[in-house]
Every structure is written in C-alpha cells, then in structure tokens.
C-alpha cells in the first residue's frame, strides 16, 4: 500500500517535472542537437518567455481622448444647425449659443417672440438631431429654449468617441507596421484612456505625432468674389470679421479661419509665418468621413522634395461634391485641415471625386498625413499622459542584474539549508529548484508577461518557499526533541506545518487577487507571478519534499534523521 502510494507520487512528480522542463527550455520547433547546449537552452528560454517592456525594451504610451472636446464640438455644431433651422423656417432669433462647462453641454436659443416657442422647437427638431430625446432633454424658460445633453448621453457619447479613437489609432498603428503592439483601454471606463505598448520601438516621436494627428479634413466654400478677382483674404482676424458687416460677431453660417500662406523652405524659420485670414461658409461642403483614399505624391512641376496629397472621395461624397462644384463654377473653395485653411483655389470645372491638398509638404510629412487621412479623423484630440521608453540595453541590464541578484540569493539559501539541515537540506534545495522551473513554466503556460515587479514576485516566492521548508523542518525537529520516532515526527511535522503553510499562502493569494483586480500593469505582473509561484510552492515544498522523505524512510528502518 505504502509502496504503491510512493510509486504514484513519484510518477506524478516525474511527469510534472518533465513537462515543466520542456515548457521552459524545450524548443517550439523540431529540436536540434544545439538546442541542448547551454547557449541554446538560454536562447529557447528567452524566446519562450514573454518579457515585459521594461525588460525587453520598447515604448509604453498612455493617452487620453479629450472627449470633452468632442462633446463641445458636437454641442456647438448643433447650436449652429439649430439657429440655421429656425431661421430657415422663418423665425426670428435674438441669439443662440452653445454652453459647455463642467461637463454640462447645452444649446440655447433666444427667441424674439416667446409665443412661438413650440413652433421653433418643432422646426428645429425636424431638421436637427436635437430632437433625439435619448440625448437631449428640452426645457423652456421665458423666451429661452434649452436643449441639455443628458448625463447618460454624455457618458455614452464620450465612451463611443474613445472606442472610435481606439479603432482609428489601431488602423494607424497597423499602417505603420509596428510589430506586436498592445492597444487597449486603460484605467477606469470614465477616464477615456488608451494604453499602447510597442515592443522594440525606442524612439516613439514619429508614432506619437502620427497618432496625435487629428486629420479633420473639410472642403469648404470660401466667401469671396468669384474668379478672376483674387480670393478674398484679410491680414487680421478682426478685418475678416469686419468684412461680414454683422456687428463684430461671426454669424452661425460663417467661420473665420487662419490661412497659412505657403512659404519657401529657404526662408528664415525663425520668422513668423505670414498668416492670413479667410471667411468660409458653414457647414462644410463635405468632411473627411467621405474620404475614400489619400496618398502622397510629388508636386507636379515643383521642386523635387515638394509633396502634396491626392485624395479621392466615396460615392456619396463625390455626388455631393459634384453637385456643389457644378453650381459654383469660378467661385473659391478651400481645403481645411484641423481648423486651418491649407489651400484656396477657384473651381475651373465640375469636380467629382478627387482633389489635392497642396501645402509644400516634405515626403515624410505628406506620407504621414496621407496615412492619418486614410485611417479617418480622430473624433477628438488626444493628449499623452504617460510615456516610457526603455532601450534594449537598459532592459538587458535590468534582466542581468535581476538574474544575478536572484542567483546570489538562491546560492546563499542553498548553502545555508545544506549546512543547517544537512541531508534534509537536499530536500529543500530540490523543492526550491523545482519551484523555480515550474514557476517559469507557469508563466509560459498562462502567457503571463515577466516584468521587473514580476522578478520581485519571484523573489518573494523564493522567500516563501524557503519559509515552507523551514517551517516543516523546524516542526520535525521539535517533534524529534519531544521523543517521537522518526516516522511519526516526519508525519506530524508535515501535518502541523501544513496548516500554517496553507494559511500563509492563502492570505498572500487573497491579497494578490485584490492587487490583480484593482492594480494596473506592473502591479498585476507582480500579483500574477506571486500567485503562480505560491500555488506551485504548495506542490514543491509540501508534496515533493514529503515524497522524498517517504522514500528515504521506506528504504530502511531509520533510527535517526539527518535534519
């Protein structure tokens, strides 16, 4: 019975050890002889285990989608549209505006005639999405009409904007060809943060710029006398507003935008760009959502390093654009990128589905811009909250230091255990080494990432593994001192110490679970390593160590134990 029990245990341990060893240093391809040399095993281990960015090198970016900006724009657009709708329906307004502060977003219309409130409201609701009661709640006070965005809608819309931004960033990263990126929501739902990890990317400047590119493209009608007179531009913003003859304010169907005149590259870069202002019509003829494709091409007849962007429109956009350009021959239109007019040109003939953005781009900047245009406009600007880069050499230094320290620590433990517990110390050392191997195997099986805090978890596990052995051995010694036979001292020692070991392990596992649930990246890495290590320790320090004792005691009648 005993013998059979021992055999079963030995077989289980052998199988687990072999599987563990294979997982850690076994190649994932057809094995060659060189896979079993020291350097070969090291290489296999490195490729099997998934290293965190802090060890492997790479970039870690946390960005926030400025959803409040998205909601503000949405509210402002609606305010403009509501005013236009009311005016189109023949009602007179004293004023209208969007109010956005402290996560309150509302559209306000001031009526000239308060008795017409219901009619104005109906006229607005017919044309503008303010009628959507799941988003906007309507209220009236005197001659003022209010549409307030409901808190639920604020949450949902902000969340959607973040998801959309995530998708766009994803397509931009794919277009850039970054290997094995990790892209995910970060932190609380309401924080609208996105985490991007790029292994191996040391200098994320270009990626950051590309991801940040809002790429809001609009094609607009420029208010100007038609060709052949030149496009109307104004030297200052005030002059442009004055040309509207509307008493110093910009009416809802107009916008005043800066127009950066093209400058020669040789010009002194310290000189401010000569800026001009133009007046454009709102809303835009079409926007970037109608874009089908965009590509960078060298400017025809320009200098060799001058690039421009060719774009083409989707069917729906092309129809709209074609109809508009057909009826506005000789008038001026402008290409607006991120709220800045890039170029102004008059319409020679009807244009359907393609156009250019010229602006004296370099090859790189034109290609980057085309890439972001293809991926679509970000719903809202993003800002970077956190940026960490680790060069591969720094990561390797950390690994080397961590491994060296762990080995020195392990060596001291081994020497002490062998010295202090003699023969039984071998048990502890076998258990400890098995624990290390199985722990690496566990990390590989669960696809966990080994990070610097993860190494800390390994060190705590070594500590607790040693502790389990010390607890058991001290207990056996105590039982021996009180005059028990070797057999019963070993049995009692294991049984009694087991209660303590379970308690210490479960407490630590419970607190690790809390860390895993509430913690972020590095802290999670710590928790995962620790939990895996502790579960394995229950096997290696208790089951395996006890089996070795059983085997020793079964061979002969033991009078004394080397402990």
């Amino acid at each position, binding site marked *: 019975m005993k013998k059979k029990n021992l055999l079963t245990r030995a077989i289980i341990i052998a199988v687990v050890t072999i599987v563990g060893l294979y997982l850690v240093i076994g190649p994932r391809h057809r094995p060659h002889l060189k896979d079993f040399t020291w350097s070969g095993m090291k290489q296999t281990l490195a490729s099997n285990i998934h290293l965190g960015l802090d060890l492997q090198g790479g970039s870690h970016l946390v960005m926030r989608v400025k959803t409040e900006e998205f909601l503000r724009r949405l509210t402002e657009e609606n305010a403009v549209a509501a005013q236009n709708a009311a005016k189109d329906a023949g009602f007179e307004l004293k004023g209208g505006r969007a109010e956005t502060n402290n996560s309150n977003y509302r559209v306000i219309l001031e009526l000239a005639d308060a008795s017409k409130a219901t009619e104005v409201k109906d006229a607005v609701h017919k044309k503008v999405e303010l009628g959507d009661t799941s988003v906007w709640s309507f209220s009236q006070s005197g001659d003022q009409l209010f549409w307030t965005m409901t808190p639920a809608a604020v949450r949902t819309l902000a969340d959607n904007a973040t998801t959309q931004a995530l998708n766009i960033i994803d397509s931009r990263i794919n277009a850039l060809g970054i290997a094995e990126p990790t892209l995910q929501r970060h932190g609380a739902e309401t924080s609208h943060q996105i985490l991007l990890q790029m292994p191996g990317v040391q200098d994320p400047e270009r990626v950051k710029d590309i991801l940040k590119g809002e790429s809001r493209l609009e094609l607009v009608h420029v208010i100007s006398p038609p060709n052949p007179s030149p496009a109307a531009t104004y030297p200052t913003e005030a002059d442009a507003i004055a040309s509207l003859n509307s008493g110093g304010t910009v009416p809802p169907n107009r916008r005043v935008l800066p127009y950066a005149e093209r400058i020669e590259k040789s010009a002194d870069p310290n000189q401010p760009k000569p800026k001009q202002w133009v007046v454009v019509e709102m809303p835009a003829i079409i926007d970037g959502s109608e874009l089908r494709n965009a590509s960078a091409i060298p400017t025809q007849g320009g200098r060799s390093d001058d690039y421009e962007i060719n774009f083409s429109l989707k069917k729906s956009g092309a129809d709209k654009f074609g109809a508009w350009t057909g009826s506005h021959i000789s008038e001026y239109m402008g290409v607006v990128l991120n709220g800045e007019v890039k170029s102004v040109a008059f319409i020679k003939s009807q244009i359907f589905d393609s156009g250019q953005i010229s602006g004296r781009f370099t090859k790189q900047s034109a290609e980057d811009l085309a890439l972001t245009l293809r991926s679509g406009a970000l719903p809202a600007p993003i800002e970077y909250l956190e940026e960490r880069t680790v060069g591969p050499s720094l990561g390797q230094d950390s690994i080397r230091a961590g491994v060296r320290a762990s080995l020195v620590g392990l060596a001291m433990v081994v020497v002490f255990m062998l010295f202090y517990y003699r023969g039984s110390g071998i048990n502890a050392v076998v258990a400890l080494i098995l624990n290390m191997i199985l722990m690496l195997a566990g990390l590989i099986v669960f696809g966990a990432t080994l990070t610097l805090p993860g*190494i800390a978890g390994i060190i705590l596990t070594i500590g607790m593994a040693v502790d389990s052995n010390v607890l058991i051995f001290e207990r056996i010694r105590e039982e021996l001192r009180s005059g028990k036979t070797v057999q019963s001292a070993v049995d009692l020692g294991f049984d009694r110490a087991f209660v303590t070991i379970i308690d210490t392990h479960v407490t630590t596992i419970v607190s690790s679970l809390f860390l895993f649930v509430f913690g972020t990246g590095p802290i999670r890495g710590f928790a995962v390593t620790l939990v895996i290590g502790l579960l394995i320790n229950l096997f290696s320090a208790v089951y395996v160590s006890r089996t070795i004792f059983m085997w020793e005691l079964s061979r002969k009648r033991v009078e004394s134990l080397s402990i």
Partner: protein
Amino acid sequence: MFQILHDLDIDWLGNRVWFIGISVLLMLAGLGAAIFRQATGGQAFNLGVDFKGGTVVTVRFRQKPNDDAIRAALVNKGIHDAVVQPVTDKPDTVLIKVPLEGEGQDGRTRVREALSTFGTEAAPGKELESDSSAAYKIIGTDAVGAIAGAQLRNKAIAVTLAALVGILIYIAVRFEWTYGAAAVIAVFHDVLVTLGFFSIFNIEVSLNVIAALLTLVGFSVNDTIVVFDRIRENRKLHRRDSLYKVTNDSINQTLSRTIITSGLVFLSVLALVLFGGEVLRGFSLALLIGIVFGTYSSVAIASPIMVWWEQRLEAANREAALSFNQPRVVKPVRAQRAGSKV
C-alpha cells in the same frame, strides 16, 4: 543536530511597552521628517516622476561630460530646474530629471536639443558602440503627466488598502477578527515605518517602491500568521494556560523559524541591493527595511495588540455575564490568566 535557538523562555509580551514605544518613536521620526520637509518648502516625500509628473531621461555618453557641463547645456536651452544624477554602478550613464512644466511639453525632445551641445545621438536602432560618430544615446525615458501622476498615486494607495482589507477578511474568517485587526495594524505599521525611512533619508519613492511595499505586506502578514497559527494550536493543546503565556510560548517556539526565514530573505534582498542595479535600488531598499520591521512587528506589534484586545473582550464578556446572572451565585472564575503578569 545544529540549532540556533530552542527551548527559549523569553517574556516577549512583558516588553511590549518598549516594543510599541520604539515603533511609535520610529513612526513619529518619519512623520517629523515628512512635516519638516514639507514645512521647509520641500516635499514630504521625494516622489519620483511616477507620482509627481515630469520626465526622466537616461543617457549614456561615450565620453561623459561632468555634471555641471550637462546642467549648463540644459540651462542654455531653457531647462532650469533639471536634476542631473549620476548612476552609481555605470560611470558613463546619467539620469536627467526635468520637472513637469505645463501641458504639451516634450521633455525628451528638449533634453535631446540640449544634449546636441555634446555631439550627435546614435541613430535609431543603433547602440552607442556601433555608431562611431555618435557622442551619446538616450537609452530610456519616463515621462508622466500631472493627471497620470495623480492617478498612479491614488491607485497605489487604493490597491495597498484593498490588499489589507483582503487580508483582514481572510484572517478574520480563519482566526478571530481581533487577530485579523492586529495583523493589519502591524502591517500598516511596517508600511508607515518604511515610508518614514524614505522620508528621513530622502530616498525617491517610485512605482517600484510601491511594488516593494506590497511585497512587504505579503511578507509581514506571512510572518504574523506563523505566530498566530501556533497560538491557535497551543490554545487547543494547553487550555489551562493564559493567552499571555500561550502567546509568549508560541513566539518562542517559532522564533528559530522566524530568524532563519527572515535572515535568508534578508540576505537575498541584500543581494538585490548590492547586485540588482540602479533600476531596482529603490525597490530593494524598501524591501530590506520592510523585512526587518515586518519580522519585528509580528512579535512586537501584532501579538501584544491581539493579546490586549482579546483580554479586553474577555473582561467585557465576564462583566456582561456577571450582570446578567446576578441572582445566581457566581462561581469563582478559574484564573484564566494564571501566570499572567498583567
């Protein structure tokens, strides 16, 4: 067999006033240092960029200019409050710490501009060794904005507290809630004392230090549970002994294990301090201090608090029993605290 300690009979609880006094003094010293630093215009803790926001750029030079030259180059480009910190075990490497300055500032780009005073940077994807024309290479950056800093700070505190709650619940279930509370108070003490050391010696508190504090929480509770476990076992075996005596005995019986385990872990962590490199230094220092106090607190803090609390409850129960059973003749309660020195 070779033994460090056995058959001890030390009255640990008798010295509880000393133990708790020392701990209170240490915590007060830490608190004093924190208040003093805050009051004299500094910060209570030397928070790293993780929590404060800012940029740290790690630069390797082929021929490292002296720190003043680097500082001058930075000032020249308008970076005034930068700290240039040499790396102890890497003479060719420096850390340049730039404080947070409003939104949209790119510390890395600005530092790179300033460093161009000394030559060009190694091309992307190339190490300093393989690019002979380069004078330096930025091998790592950490840039944290104000929002992320505050967020990481709050999260770190929340996570530590959550872990403590988890421990409290588990120990309350397995033992008594007084045991759980005593263990958590002891762990809390360890964290405070360790943080106090960080304030006194002005060591930087980074995200890795938080990981160390969490490790320390695990270790300290582990240590406390070993003692409590023995108390629970001895309570069953020696029902006539007072809790006071049982606790003292249990501490004595587990003392050799406590010393061996803590000693070994201490040595491992010492190896980490000595050989673990710059990145892990804050982490390993926190752990080293923590292990000493984590071990100390299971004996000196957790046990006395638990005994004191249990005795209070026991006394309260007895009074309640007496007042409820007034008409009956009360049998003299067997001296539950025989041998007690309280």
